[in-house]
């Protein structure tokens, strides 16, 4: 069944874009103006594809996910743009139809598995809840499906476990249960918002492996939101790098990680501790603070923290320019042919 589903999804991907976000702007009104949490981003996702969205806190990656799900907390709202999912614009759907899509066609898993399950219900009931909602399944039938799904996501003795409460589960098992809950309806799109951030490292690896397997066996297209570049590199075919509500660089994982074209991506990669680095070398960091989204710097939003900033960067906002293949970045310096590695060689003694 899984193979047939995969084949079907692969065929569809040739003809159909699963998700296409066009010029999405999401704002949060504040007393003196508005916070542009997401400021005009466009991207797409094909069926069965894995896309990583990276960026630091406040870069707009979670807001992007919540915008797609239409789960923005008031007063946040989508100011403009389109979110085309299988051809329908989610931003214009009535709430009742959106509720039909949530959990049925787009599922989401959250950062903290400790708090994302309802403490008063047994795990099996919760995992089966999407089936009760979308398939009119009765409690018993939904529970049986939930047990099956718990087994598939690697929970030992699922029948026993399904009768336990969330607080009897460890963090890793809860995240597995959340993944099971997301998958019971077999949605074509899974949005994972920092799914491993709250877990310890060995469990992180297991959960990522599980997400990879799910993507392969069920053909579930996955958007993986994280601030961990290693997670994206190991898991995603394509990557978006976000900064201050914009996409500053995008491309295949190889293109972006092997040959970053935006100083922000480059700095993020530089700031990863390396085993083969000089023992005495100081760990590089990105100077300064993420920008205030209600009061962005002029020109390129990254220029106050950018080691390569030029006069032009203060004045003008760069557009995404192509660097061949799928690779695009928004930077004046690299667009003009500048090379970040050689530019820093003389300056930084490390």
């Amino acid at each position, binding site marked *: 069944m899984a193979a047939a589903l995969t084949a079907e999804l692969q065929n569809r991907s040739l003809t159909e874009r699963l998700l296409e976000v066009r010029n999405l702007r999401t704002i949060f009104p504040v007393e003196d103006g508005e916070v542009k949490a997401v400021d005009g981003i466009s991207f797409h996702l094909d069926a069965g594809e894995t896309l990583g969205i990276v960026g630091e806190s406040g870069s707009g990656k979670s807001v992007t996910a919540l915008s797609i*799900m239409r*789960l923005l907390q*008031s007063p946040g709202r989508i100011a403009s743009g389109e979110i085309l999912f299988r051809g329908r614009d989610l931003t214009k759907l009535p709430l*009742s139809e959106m*509720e*039909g*899509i*949530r*959990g*049925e066609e787009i*599922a*989401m898993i*959250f*950062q*903290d598995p400790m*708090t*994302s*399950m*309802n*403490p*008063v*219900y047994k795990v099996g009931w919760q995992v089966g*809840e*999407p089936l009760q*909602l*979308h398939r009119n399944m009765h409690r018993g039938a939904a529970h049986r499906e939930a047990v099956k799904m718990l087994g598939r996501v690697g929970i*030992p*003795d699922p029948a*026993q476990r399904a*009768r*336990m*409460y969330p607080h*009897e589960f460890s963090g890793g098992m809860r995240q597995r249960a*959340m993944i099971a*809950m*997301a998958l019971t309806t077999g949605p074509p799109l899974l949005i994972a918002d920092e799914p491993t951030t709250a877990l310890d490292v060995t469990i992180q690896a297991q959960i990522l492996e599980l997400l990879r397997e799910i993507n392969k066996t069920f053909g579930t297209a996955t958007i993986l939101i994280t601030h961990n570049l290693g997670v994206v590199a190991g898991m995603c075919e394509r990557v978006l790098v976000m900064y201050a509500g914009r996409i500053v660089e995008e491309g295949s994982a190889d293109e972006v990680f092997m040959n970053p074209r935006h100083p922000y991506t480059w700095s993020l990669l530089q700031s990863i501790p390396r085993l083969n680095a000089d023992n005495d070398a100081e760990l590089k960091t990105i100077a300064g603070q993420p920008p205030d989204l209600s009061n962005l710097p002029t020109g390129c939003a990254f220029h106050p923290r950018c080691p390569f900033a030029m006069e032009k960067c203060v004045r003008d906002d760069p557009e995404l320019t192509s660097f061949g293949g799928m690779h695009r970045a928004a930077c004046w310096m690299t667009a003009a042919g500048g090379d970040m590695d050689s530019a820093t060689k003389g300056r930084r003694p490390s």
Partner: protein
Amino acid sequence: MAQTIESAGPGGTRPIGQGRPYYGFWRQSWRSFRANRIGMISAAILIFFMFIALIAPLISHFVTHFTATAQDLNNTFASPSHQHLLGSDELGRDTLTRLVYGARASLGIGFLTVAIALTIGVSVGLVASYFGGIVDDLLMRLVDVVLATPAIFLYILMAILFRPSPIAFPFIIASVSWAPLARLVRAEGLTLRSREFMLATQSIGAGHARLILRHLLPNSIPLVIVAASLRLGQVILIEAALDYLGLGVQPPTPTWGNMLSNAEIYFSHSVWLVVLPGIAIFLTVIATNLLGNALRDVFDPWQSKH
């Protein structure tokens, strides 16, 4: 994996890697409640009064052999005796029978009032906390208005307007006493609303009604139970006070409140006529309050540890 799961009997599932059997929330609460002596005694007192109230006609028929309103003018102010186990009043009516029927009125009105007040208070509190914004503002201003109303005058007005029957009574008291409950539940709802599981549940496609009824409500039930038991004592006191003022259930139907007010003029020579309904009210109210405190300790063990 080297872990084993021991299948458990009716006691529940044994968690992996631990010897202690795990019990569900309610079962665990019950175990901890059973260990709470004051709570158990209070519950026993309340259950005793409820039982008495339920079997009042049987007691009247088989034990006292009097009805609550049967007069015996040859035998007024009788002391406790074989014939009148707890004596008789100024019309020769049997005090025990009247006390037993009084329990019906007090507890019946009390429970019904609390049920109505809970229904309104919990609905308003949950809806206000769930939707927030203007809905919350409007509902909470309504609560403010109700709380600012001097309740006793409202009761007097209602009593004059409607000459309350025992059935109308609960509605009158509940029309005021839902407001503090609404506030309490709203506060709890606001905390729950911001928990991630609410967002997660929304993300699987649950609508407003389901989120409120299936997810917010069950999580606030412990709080509601505690609030309800504390409220029950207050309602019984209010009812007794209104009866005492002659605004409540009208004689000859016996209630603890009107028995008390009826007896006060005979206090100098028939003390028990005052003392007995007084003890009944006192015991019931203190039992509900202590039960409420015990339940709070059971449901929220952190709060009781000072």
